[in-house]
Structures are given as structure tokens and as C-alpha cells.
């Protein structure tokens, strides 16, 4: 890898005077060489896999994107919260509530509206209920100065209980249609990979781009990072720390709502406890992604890939191993990631601490 870096920078012996200020492209490339290397490796790997078994590869690749969708959105929810200084362990519960409300609203409104508007109403309901749960978490953390882990756990337990209690067996909702780009989806592999997904999958990628820009290039992002690291410093220069935390927890909640609805997008129906630990895996995704939107995207894709592999292996029965063992993969991976990445990960400094201005 060292050799790779050396070739990327111009020759040092000749023309040292010209090396004063490398161009923005070169600087970007040297800073992100590991990322570039990874992307190239993935592309090459996928190419050879495709040569070897095109059908399998296409299925796993498309599955990776599909499985990554809720993790991206939920991971972004965790990121917005922790960047502002509040741990959100209740993502699981927010997703479950959102999936339930989204399902119920869609299911009951589909007769009055048509399926498209009913789905839109469901998505809005999902975002709203999860945002309210986010505000509840913010309220307990800010006003009650409650332990944030406990407050999040309250949301999780409430969500399991409430959704199980009110759930009515046998209801259905219209399928969330895939948005395809005509003719582009025909391209082998690429088409299935990029141009044949439900709207929430595209939304997940848009959310990552949006928050990458806003987190590092807007006033909101600067202030959010400041209140997660040193709220006291932000407070002394007039940043409204508590108000911004409320706002950000609501935004994060809306993202968790999208994550919850994306589960309906792939399952087509609500099931009890259908989040199945994804809200917790999302926290691992956030840590692995080092609290950065692009990092969350990359981490979610890795988890998504193992999920997709896992379901393919279960489906194919390629090995004489009970399928539950394959089902374990994402969780074992979560533990491994937290054990390895967690050592070097540095969360925002003020995360989890109640803030009181002087």
C-alpha cells in the first residue's frame, strides 16, 4: 500500500519547487487512498464474482443494497443524535413504532385514497411517530436529566408492548413499488444494483449525501458538532444548546421513521418485533462509520453484504449447516466490529452527559 501512495504523489527528487501546493484532487486522493483502494477492490471482486456466477452475484449485490437501507437510515439517526451529545439507544423502538404506524395508516387509508397516496401518508406517519419518540428521548435527557441509556430502553420496551398489543393479524397493505429507470435497469448487474429499488432505498443514499454536506459545510453542522463535543464552549458564544438538541433528536427520529418504513418496503407487511435488532446493529454501524455519514454508508453496506450473503446461503442450502447459524452472522459481525473498531473509535466528547448552562 505504501507503494501505491508513493506513485500517487509526484516525483520528489525532480522539480521540488513545483511541489509547493498539490492540487485539490491530489490532496483528496492522498487523504482518502484507503477508501479509493477499497472501492477499486470491491469493483474488481464483483467483476470476477460475476464472471464466475452471474445470477448469484446479482442477487447478493442487489440484496446488499436492500439490506443496507434500514441500517443506513437508522445509523444516520444515531449519528445525528450522538453528534449533538445524546445517545439514542431507542432507535430499535423508534423503527418498530414507525413501521407499525406506517403500516396501519397505509392499510386503513388505502381504500379512501389510492395506493400511492396511502403509502405516502404511511411514510409521513412513520416519520412523525418516530420523531415524537425522538423528542421524548430529548425531553427525558434534557429536562429530566435522565440516564439516556435507560430512556432509550424505555422507548424500546414501550414500542414492543404497544405494537404487539394493537397489532391486528391479517391486515395487508399495498406493496411499495420499485422505482426503475427505464432501459437502465436492463443493464446486467448495474441495473439491478442501482436502478431497481424502492423509493426508501434511494432516499437512504440521498440522506447520506444530504447529511454529509450539511454536517461539514453548514452552520447547523458546525453547531451540532460543537454541542456534541463541548456544549459549554458553544453556550458561552451564544449557541442555543438545548434547543438544537431537541431539533436534532426530532430530525434523527424522522430518519428512524424512514428506516422503520423501509422494513415494510422489503417485507410488505408488519410483523411483531420485525426490527429484529436492526436498531442496535445501526449503532454498531454508526460506531464503525466513526460518526461520519460516509462512514455510516460504508459500514451499512458491509453489514448489508453479510446479510445478503447469509440469506443466499440459507436459501441455497449449500452447506449442511442449520440455517440459524447463517442467521447469526450479522450479530457475530456486530460484536466483532465493536470489539475491533470500538477500541479506536472516539465518540463525541460530551455524549451522554446532561448539559446545564452556567
Amino acid at each position: 500500500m505504501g507503494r501505491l501512495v508513493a506513485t500517487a504523489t509526484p516525483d520528489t527528487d525532480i522539480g521540488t519547487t513545483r511541489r509547493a501546493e498539490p492540487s485539490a484532487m491530489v490532496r483528496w486522493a492522498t487523504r482518502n487512498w484507503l477508501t479509493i483502494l477499497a472501492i477499486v477492490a470491491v469493483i474488481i471482486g464483483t467483476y470476477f464474482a460475476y464472471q464466475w456466477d452471474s445470477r448469484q452475484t446479482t442477487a447478493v449485490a442487489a440484496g446488499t443494497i436492500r439490506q443496507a437501507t434500514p441500517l443506513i437510515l437508522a445509523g444516520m439517526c444515531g449519528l445525528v443524535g450522538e453528534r449533538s451529545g445524546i445517545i439514542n439507544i431507542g432507535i430499535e423502538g423508534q423503527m418498530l413504532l414507525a413501521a407499525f404506524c406506517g403500516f396501519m395508516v397505509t392499510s386503513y387509508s388505502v381504500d379512501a385514497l389510492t395506493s400511492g397516496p396511502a403509502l405516502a401518508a404511511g411514510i409521513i406517519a412513520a416519520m412523525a411517530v418516530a420523531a415524537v419518540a425522538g423528542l421524548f428521548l430529548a425531553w427525558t435527557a434534557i429536562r429530566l436529566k435522565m440516564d439516556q441509556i435507560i430512556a432509550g430502553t424505555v422507548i424500546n420496551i414501550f414500542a414492543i408492548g404497544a405494537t404487539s398489543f394493537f397489532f391486528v393479524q391479517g391486515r395487508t397493505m399495498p406493496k411499495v413499488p420499485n422505482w426503475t429507470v427505464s432501459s437502465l435497469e436492463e443493464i446486467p448487474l448495474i441495473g439491478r444494483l442501482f436502478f431497481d429499488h424502492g423509493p426508501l432505498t434511494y432516499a437512504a443514499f440521498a440522506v447520506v449525501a444530504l447529511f454529509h454536506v450539511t454536517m461539514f459545510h453548514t452552520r447547523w453542522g458546525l453547531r451540532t458538532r460543537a454541542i456534541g463535543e463541548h456544549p459549554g464552549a458553544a453556550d458561552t458564544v451564544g449557541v442555543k444548546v438545548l434547543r438544537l438538541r431537541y431539533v436534532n433528536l426530532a430530525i434523527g427520529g424522522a430518519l428512524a421513521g424512514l428506516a422503520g418504513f423501509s422494513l415494510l418496503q422489503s417485507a410488505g407487511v408488519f410483523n411483531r418485533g420485525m426490527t429484529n435488532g436492526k436498531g442496535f446493529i445501526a449503532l454498531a454501524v454508526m460506531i464503525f462509520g466513526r460518526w461520519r455519514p460516509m462512514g455510516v454508508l460504508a459500514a451499512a453496506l458491509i453489514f448489508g453484504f453479510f446479510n445478503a450473503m447469509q440469506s443466499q446461503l440459507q436459501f441455497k442450502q449449500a452447506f449442511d449447516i442449520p440455517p440459524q447459524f447463517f442467521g447469526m452472522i450479522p450479530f457475530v459481525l456486530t460484536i466483532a466490529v465493536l470489539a475491533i473498531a470500538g477500541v479506536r473509535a472516539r465518540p463525541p466528547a460530551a455524549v451522554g452527559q446532561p448539559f446545564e448552562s452556567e
Partner: protein
Amino acid sequence: MAEVSDPSEPTEPIEPTEPIESTESIDSDGPDMAEKTARSFDTSDSSPPLLEAKGLTKRFPGVVANDSVDLTLHEGEILGLLGENGAGKSTLVKMLFGIHQPDEGEIYFRGERVTNDGPGDAIARGIAMVHQHFQLVPPLTVAENIVLGAEPTSGGFFQRRAAEARVKEISEQYGLTVNPRDIVDDLPVGIQQRVEILKALYRGARLLILDEPTAVLTPQETDELLAILRDLAADGVGIIFITHKLREVLEVTDRVTVLRGGKGVGTSTTKGATTASLAEMMVGRSVVFRVEKPEAETGDVVLRVQDLKVRDQRRQMAVDGASLEVAAGEILGVAGVEGNGQRELVEAITGIRPIVGGSATVLDQRVVHKPRTVRDMGVAYIPEDRERDGLVGTYSIADNMVLASYNRPPFATRGVRDFDQVDDLAERLVEEFDVRTPGIDVAVQTLSGGNKQKVIVARELSVPKALVVASQPTRGVDVGSIEFIHEQLVAARDAGAAVLLVSAELDEIFSLADRIAVLYEGRIVTTLDPNTTTREEVGLFMAGGGERAPH
């Protein structure tokens, strides 16, 4: 300004309270005095002073932190604010900055009466404060930290380039060199402080309050800061400079206001003042209260510290070649301005902090970086921060009494605790050491400061020890308990222990110590005999002023 000579001119800025002859030439003033006198304040001008505080009073439950304090500051002037710990300096500037509201008195800023309802108000008026603990966000860049809260934006987008350009501009204007793109976390403390000052200037501060800004700086960084302050003053910024270090006051300020016990003792021009005259104003002439104690009967040397080097949290060499000896049956008092290596010295001797150079031995056994081992060598330790290092607040008095011996006979046999033995001991010690408590099962955190300290003293001194290390043993303790603790230390000495007493209170040092060692910048600069020296002389050495050979 209780001693303004001419009441008809209340805005007269130069009011020497001490009868200092202006014609008298004083050697210690240094070469920059000429420059300082050149910077004159036009007193005939009718324009009001930048800041004027009259009769500020602030009461906290049980104490009057500030009692009718006056203060005046002109544009382009550097005012030193001096006083011992607890004299009320911090309370005073917190009122000026709007963190506290005065109970009585008025603040005038640029001739207008103001009430600063919080720091935001003060900042908006052009009053800025550089706190001792920096208010910076470590992972953000210099520019981001400076503009935070008042960011240049366009359509919600943060204008990074504009921010960086503006920071560059201000930093060049005032000679405060920083790189706007550096991450604050990567910068040394001196540069971080520059960022704090730039933050104030970016917001258009005309009055800058610095709370012990040099406490965290290396000597070199201090010199740089002082030069910066002079430049800022030349630009018309008024500066209030809080410090313990008299040398810095003489070097950089125009006038000095001294507080003692919450009251303004007076204001004097720096020109003509000396470290001795300032120390006298600060400490006052209160009588030294001596504990009744017989002459020391010293035995063999117990603690021998040779050329000791210890690093502090910031990896700076806080103890840098200190040497001292304490013999059985004597109390060695270590005097010094806080932050000159006291904490590190004590923690190295007790095995809490690693020794990086030189050595410390107790009864010829080398001190190692293992507190338990050192304790077993016969070392008792009364720590500076009793809540953090001396007690477990939620444990009972009884459990705190056996913190170091709970797992040994008679308090435990084969890993099973014997609570009867523990209770017997606790009952006896509470009685003997006069701990005022409803019972031995009370959580120790519910006791008053004095009683908490008595619990520690009881635990540490109830068994004869070879060496007693006592660090600020009476800080924040009521008068009655102070006397008791002092008696216990003398009793330990008379029983044959070597006592190392570290204290910021000169009264305490004078009343207890058989010999006085002065710690300055990590070294023992002199050892003095309390019977022949004076507070002024010790104060001079503490301020780094005494350069004579030790007697």
C-alpha cells in the same frame, strides 16, 4: 478605591494607596519601565473610563465573597488583579462578565450603567473573558472555534473561506500567529490560549478579562502572552489580568488592584511597586497564629528526595530536580504558589505518580510507582483533594476508616471481613479524633469538610507512621477543625514521624513547620528557618524573586 485622595475627581485613574515616592528609583522595575511610563492616560480628558465598578458586593450562603469592591479600568490599560486564594478575584470578574449578578453596587461600561444578564450580554457589549479552562471545541479547527456562534454564512452554508480569511486578518493585525486550519486539539496550550483571545477579538471585545492565564503556560509561552497583552493594550483594549505571580504583574500591568478577604485593599500604580510591596498588600500584616509545640527533636533522615523529576498531566516537567530531606521528629513545610509542582511532588513521594528522574527514598527504601507498596513502607497520606483521593463518599465512616486495611487482620481473616473489629475501630477513632457524626454507619459524604478531614486524619495517623505526607490538610476546613488537625500533625511529629507539610497557606506553614522549603517552578529554591525568616522573605522566594543562597 476607598482611598481616592480627591473625591471631586472620581475618575482619576492613578491613585497610589501606598505612599510610594514617584521619584524613587527601583531596580527591580526592569528596562521596560520607560515604555510603560510613555503610555500615559489622559486624565484631563472628560471621557469616562472604559469600566468602572462601584461598591460591588456579592454574598454567597455563609460568606461575603466581595464586600463593596471598587475597580476602574481605562482604554488601553492593563490592570493587575491580585489576591490570595479566596480573596474574591474570581467572584469580582464573574460579576463583570455577567456570570454572577452583584447583590449591591453598580457597573459602568463606557460611562453607561449596565447590568450584564449572562455572558451573552457581556460579549455583546464588548466584554470578553478568557477562562482558566479554555472554552474551545477540541476537534474543530481554529477558524471554526473562533467564529462559532457568529459564523459567516450564505444561505445557511458556512463560509469556511471567509471565516479563515477573517481569522487570518485579525491574527495578523494583532500579531497572534495561528493557522486557521489547524485542529485545536493538536495545538499546544499557549496557542489554544491565543485562539481564545482571538475569539474575543473576533467579537469586537474592548475589555478582556484573563483569569490566571499564565497558570497553565510554560515560562516561554508566558513571555509570549505578555507581549501580546502589551500589543492589545497599545491598540486600546482594556485588560484585567488576574494572577498570583508578582513578576508578571510588575512586568506587564499599569496599575494593580489588590483584594484581601473579599475587600479591596487598594489600588496602586505598578510603577514604583516591588514584589515585596505587592506581597505585603496581598497578605496583609495579620499575626501568625502559632501552634504550641516543643522544640523538634530530630532523628535520622526518613524521607530523602534527590534531584526528583516528575511530569504533570500535560507531560510537562512539573517537578524538575527537587531535592529535600525530612528527618524523624520534624515538620518540613513546603511553601509555594500553587502550580509550582506541589501536587506532582506529593504524588510521586506517595507512589501515585511515576518518577521520571532522580529518586525518593523512605528509610532508605526506594519509592516505587505503587501506592500500596509505599503505604506499607510506613507512609501516611493526607491528600489535597479529599473528596477525590481520600474518601469514598458513599461508604460509611467505618468502611472509610479501613480503606487501606480492610483485607488484613484483624479486619479480615482469609478473605472474610470481621465487621465487629471494623466497628470497634471506627467507634474508637470517631471518639478519639472528635469526628462529629450521628454514628459510624453514616455515609461519609454527608459530613462537613472538617469532619471528613478528621476521618482521613484518624485513618492515617492513628497508627504510628515513619512518614506523614500532608497536602493542604486544612483547605476548606472550619477554624476549630484546623486547630485539631494541626495538633494531630504536631503529635505525629512528637511521636517520631517525619512530616512533609505542603500548604498554600503561609500562616499554616509558619505555625507548624520546623523548617520551610520553598518550591518554585519544580525546584526547592531555598530552605529557611521560620524563627529567623519573615513572611515577606518567604513570599519573595515563592514569587521567584529571592535569588540569594539558602541559609
